[in-house]
């Protein structure tokens, strides 16, 4: 059993929980995820790791309520325990493979949408701790839906945008990207995009236009998360890969997003449907 130590509401229907999971905390790296199961009847739900504290033995996750399982997760309170909390799963971010000296010379841009912000945080924080500066664009529909802005501002240069202009730049993340590059003359040579699939698709098209190598973190439907079932398969550059073991981060210019979005909706209309069964709610918009 994995005990919930803290819980806070970050925005309407978006909760952050800190969970006691010493083994996961010890091995977690930025970019990885965990699989959580609330109870005996629960699904195995993948959630990206948003932070970890090796000393305290805790891992932080952020969940947005979008269906039955995320609702069950968010209904849990400090003192309650998850039946299962397995991880860390997937490959760590590619940034960790780049030699530090080279990394320091790079201009790295993160693009976060919706609750995709929290999963960007461990990567930005890791870079910060290793003396690497980075920029983070955070997009939301309106000012009330932002999460992790304070945390992020402590470790990166943050640029906010909203669809309705209620805070920051008025427009989509793609427009803000163009603005930074074209108006402010910023140059980026590595981009990581995390957010809803549709946002990642268009943001990746945009970085392609600007010629910036780009990674996206896919929130595919999963069951085991260990490479055993193939539920999470995705086409990347014409090859079928498993998100849970080959990813979750892939070359954003090679991913077949239309197929990925279609596969996310595999169980729409199913008797047990809860719109998010197949979705890492951490990324939902």
């Amino acid at each position, binding site marked *: 059993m994995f005990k919930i130590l803290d819980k806070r509401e970050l925005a309407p229907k978006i909760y952050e929980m800190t969970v006691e999971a010493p083994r*996961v905390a*010890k091995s977690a790296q930025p970019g990885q995820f965990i699989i959580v199961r609330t109870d005996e009847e629960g*699904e195995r739900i993948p959630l990206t790791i948003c932070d970890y504290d090796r000393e305290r033995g805790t891992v932080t996750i952020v969940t947005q309520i979008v269906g039955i399982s995320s609702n069950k997760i968010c209904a849990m309170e400090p003192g309650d325990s998850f039946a299962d909390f*397995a991880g860390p799963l997937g490959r760590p971010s590619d940034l960790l493979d780049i030699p530090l000296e080279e990394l320091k010379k790079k201009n790295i841009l993160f693009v976060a949408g919706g609750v995709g912000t929290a999963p960007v945080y461990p990567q930005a924080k890791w870079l910060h701790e290793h003396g690497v500066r980075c920029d983070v664009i955070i997009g939301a529909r309106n000012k009330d839906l932002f999460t992790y802005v304070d945390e992020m501002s402590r470790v990166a240069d943050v640029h906010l945008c909203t669809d309705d202009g209620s805070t920051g730049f008025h427009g989509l993340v793609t427009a803000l990207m163009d603005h930074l590059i074209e108006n402010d003359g910023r140059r980026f040579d590595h981009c990581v995009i995390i957010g809803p699939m549709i946002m990642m698709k268009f943001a990746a098209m945009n970085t392609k236009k600007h010629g910036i190598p780009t990674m996206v973190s896919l929130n595919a439907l999963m069951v085991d998360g260990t*490479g055993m079932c193939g539920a999470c398969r995705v086409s990347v550059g014409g090859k079928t890969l498993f998100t849970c073991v080959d990813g979750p981060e892939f070359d954003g210019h090679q991913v077949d997003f239309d197929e990925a979005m*279609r*596969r996310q909706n595999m169980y729409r209309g199913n008797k*047990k449907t809860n719109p998010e069964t197949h979705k890492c709610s951490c990324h939902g918009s």
Partner: protein
Amino acid sequence: MAVKIPRTPVREQDPQVRATNFEEVCYGYNAEEAALEASRCLNCPRPRCVQACPVGLNIPGFIKALHEGDTAGAAAIIAQDSSLPSVCGRVCPQESQCEGSCVLGIKSEPVAIGKLERYVGDWKIAHSAECADTLAPRNGHKVAVIGSGPSGLACASDLARLGYEVKIFEALHKVGGVLVYGIPEFRLPKEAIVAREVDNVRKLGVEIETDVVVGRTITIDQLMDDEGYEAVFIGSGAGLPRFMGIPGENLNGVFSANEYLTRANLMKAYDKDYDTPIYEGKRIVVVGGGNVAMDAVRTAKRMGAEAFIVYRRSEAELPARVEEVHHAKQEGIEFRMLTNPVAVLGDEQGKVTGIECVRMELGEPDESGRRRPVEIPDSKYTLECDTVIMALGTSPNPLIKHTTAGLDTNRKGCIVADEQGRTTRPGIFAGGDAVTGAATVILAMGAGRKAAAAIHEYISSK
């Protein structure tokens, strides 16, 4: 005289009824039936059944004890060679092992060795309190076992009996490996059988930690260096599903058998109280002819679908247990033999609408000795369906290899180990499907036990 008694029939759930539920198909023998069947055995001086058993189980010995009314004695004899009789009695391919060689089978029908083994195993579970093992005193040495399938459970029990402090690390949330995520309830009851076998392993003092994915949560080197395990047994199975590589395989409605079965068995998707969904197909085509294919197609049938098997060879080559094929037919599964899929077809929404197949005929024997299926020209046709399940075999997951330096694997990704389970890294042992590729429960169990002996030898001689 004894030969005159016909093989005792076994009672089964009615096919029409069972095709709509997940309860066990076969009821097994009761005491009288078991005694009667046991009386058929000739107690051969040079028993052919024993030679044909992968673990050399003393078959006439246990049957004789049973015949004499000493079920506990029978259980003790089996325990010398097998730690999972209730499971093996249900899932071993007896027709190509013990029963296939039984001398009675030459003129009449072989002794129902599997059903008798199951009877004894189930009796032992029901009387587990009386059959409690005597434990050896703890010897202070620690061994880690990776994976809780038959190989891991068998290895752990033997080591615990020798006094080792054993801990099993399992990636999933449930213990049992393929026995809980792959083989369905209607063939192998999870609570009544698998969970009880696991309880018995725990009673020996074996600790089991779930949710530990070795290679991610912790590496083998960390287990040995940081947590003080002197030896490690890898029984991680062969869980990686294969796909055909034909067009349309990523359409909505195409699944690996592993996914379909995991949703049904491990996640209990067929039960409305569980949250995990399962694809609600009306016409389901399963590609393949092994036990996995039979389990998937019969699960599909029980989910209310019209269900088909598509297999590229002929019925004689079906690798599944004969009993499963027989049961599948009784349940109304349609078999399309000598048929090979070439593409999965879909609509504009990306949902499966059918599977395009070609007809095959058998040509010259291939390297496996079976006649090679060759395509009949211009025989393409479409089988309409909304779901396709690929049951084409599996291979070992590369995670442990990738995270353990010096651990060799072969071309197929199987861990290289000798007969005793010794890998290319001292102190690291392996067995079961992780070494052989997808095989059988009995072989995995046997490999786990051999490795336990080798680990004992390794640690004792350090």
